[in-house]
């Protein structure tokens, strides 16, 4: 397929028949979910980069963030753009695919090939919609564990990811400590804060207020809540950035005009940027999946699963951790990372922590940040030496 004339995949088709690898599970491998439901026909879509060594000891699982997908470091079939972490992952890059076998799966509840609300429910032949069971971060990790099992990997060399991906990394380390040699949770927290839940609720209400949402049955009825989802994305996008980054990029500059129009057109560049972000998001993401993903993050509270004591989540762990936050991240501020580090200290875990200087806000973990790359390279390299890779 030529990059010059990319034929883009249909998001609706991708939900069931992804153009990536996919592992399918039947009634002999049900997915037991936190809400009590057992999914007996489910699938997980994934991509891999590099190759697994003979000892099967060099696998790195990368966990994606809220609206990410399995297209980590290769062309996304829906958007036609490069993967979301191509800066970090590839030959010779901080996560070196010539040395490590990198796996990235779409999470359960997602919309690019892993079973979720946009998938067809085998029992009814219709899209799951809101009949899909509510997903938790632990469910995502459980599903990934089935995938890792099916790939014949006993123990991951590393689990890495930022934001919601970082939550999965922490959950992996807590649920399956013996299967995670090292863990790299970035720009994340052991729980979702009240402020974060509040932002998510605004997004969900925007989706549900759209008349085209149709009580969640829009796929059956042939509509799409594009306006609502777009507004949700616009609101969320602001929380991923910082005022200095927005100011540097847009300031109060006007868009394609010399003077204000005295109307509600997108006079300001920042407005038209957000509108673009909203519209392009709608093209690739399912509105119900957005509801489920945000809910999963809201429910995440690792300490609560352990009697309110976060250190107990990591008791006796041998996993080597490296936690990093960014100075301008106000969605997952450094204090959230410090809480993780304190718990790991109390559990006697091997942990590094660094607050990285960046004015790019929460999204910094996705961008080309030299100090993030140096940290990742150093941590992964030392862990690889310790594991004899």
């Amino acid at each position, binding site marked *: 397929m030529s990059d010059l004339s990319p034929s883009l995949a249909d998001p609706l088709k991708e939900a069931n028949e992804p153009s990536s690898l996919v592992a399918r599970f039947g009634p002999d491998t049900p997915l037991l979910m936190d809400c009590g439901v057992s999914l007996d026909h489910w699938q997980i879509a994934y991509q891999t980069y590099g190759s697994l060594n003979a000892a099967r000891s060099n696998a790195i699982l990368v966990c994606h963030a809220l609206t990410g997908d399995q297209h980590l470091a290769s062309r996304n079939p829906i958007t036609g753009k490069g993967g979301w972490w191509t800066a970090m992952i590839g030959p010779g890059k901080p996560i070196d695919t010539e040395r490590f076998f990198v796996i990235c799966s779409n999470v359960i509840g997602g919309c690019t090939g892993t079973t979720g609300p946009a998938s067809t429910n085998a029992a009814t032949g219709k899209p799951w919609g809101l009949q899909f069971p509510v997903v938790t971060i632990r469910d995502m990790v459980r599903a990934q564990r089935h995938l890792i099992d099916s790939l014949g990997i006993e123990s991951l060399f590393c689990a890495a990811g930022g934001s919601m991906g970082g939550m999965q990394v922490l959950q992996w380390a807590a649920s399956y400590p013996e299967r995670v040699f090292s863990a790299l949770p970035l720009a994340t927290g052991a729980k979702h804060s009240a402020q974060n839940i509040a932002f998510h609720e605004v997004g969900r209400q925007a989706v549900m207020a759209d008349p085209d949402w149709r009580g969640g049955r829009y796929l059956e009825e042939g509509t799409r809540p594009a306006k609502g989802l777009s507004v949700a994305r616009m609101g969320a996008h602001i929380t991923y950035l910082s005022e200095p980054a927005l100011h540097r990029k847009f300031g109060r500059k006007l868009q394609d005009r010399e003077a204000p129009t005295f109307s509600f057109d997108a006079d300001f560049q920042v407005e038209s940027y957000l509108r673009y972000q909203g519209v392009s998001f709608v093209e690739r993401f399912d509105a119900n999946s957005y509801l489920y993903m945000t809910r999963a993050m809201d429910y995440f509270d690792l300490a609560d699963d352990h009697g309110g004591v976060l250190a107990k989540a990591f008791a006796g762990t041998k996993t080597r951790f490296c936690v990093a936050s960014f100075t301008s991240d106000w969605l997952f501020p450094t204090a959230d990372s410090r809480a993780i*580090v304190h718990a790991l200290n109390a559990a006697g875990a091997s942990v*590094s*922590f*660094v607050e990285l200087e960046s004015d790019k806000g929460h999204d910094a973990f996705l961008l080309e940040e030299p100090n993030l790359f140096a940290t990742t390279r*150093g941590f992964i390299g030392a*862990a690889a*030496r310790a594991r004899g890779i």
Partner: protein
Amino acid sequence: MALTDLHTNRIDLKLVAEMVTPGSRVLDVGCGDGELLALLADSRHVDARGIELSREGVAGCVARGLSVIQGDADTDLADYPDDSFDYVILSQTIQATRNPRLVLEQMLRIGRRAIVSFPNFGHWRMRTQVFFMGRMPVTDSLPYAWWDTPNIHFCTIRDFVTLCDTIGAEKERAVALDAAGGKVGVSAPWWLWNLFGAQAVFLLKRG
């Protein structure tokens, strides 16, 4: 263990490393760029961890593969449980802490042993600068003017001994180094150490 197979020019770091039993668990408080941690990991095969205040220091340590946490000795030691480490080391850092007594007490709580090395403000050069020039001393090992120094709690060897006695810390070993890095006579009296020791290294345990 012989000093020769420890690859550093810093004699005080060699002394500290010598005091650490191979294979033990070590926390270096104020680990800077990780020179001591790397030395301990390579030559003593310890489970080495560090705490460092400066972002640059931590980033450098992590990049060289050391387990280091960005944090403040004055506040963050409280997060560690009792007896988490065999040795807690404070190398050339005590004079930069806000509350040296609390830091030392915390070190002896979370470690079975504490190793403290510090510049001796009672050294004759310091005394001479204050006495004859009437100014705060500036030396090669302490190259800061009074108004831009990170060091806020200087002490002399005798002062440090008094602090150890006050908090009931037992001195297992003590070594003073002269300005050239040579050891001041082991059997010499405290006053001689206090005058000629440019820096001191103490191995402490709970009394």
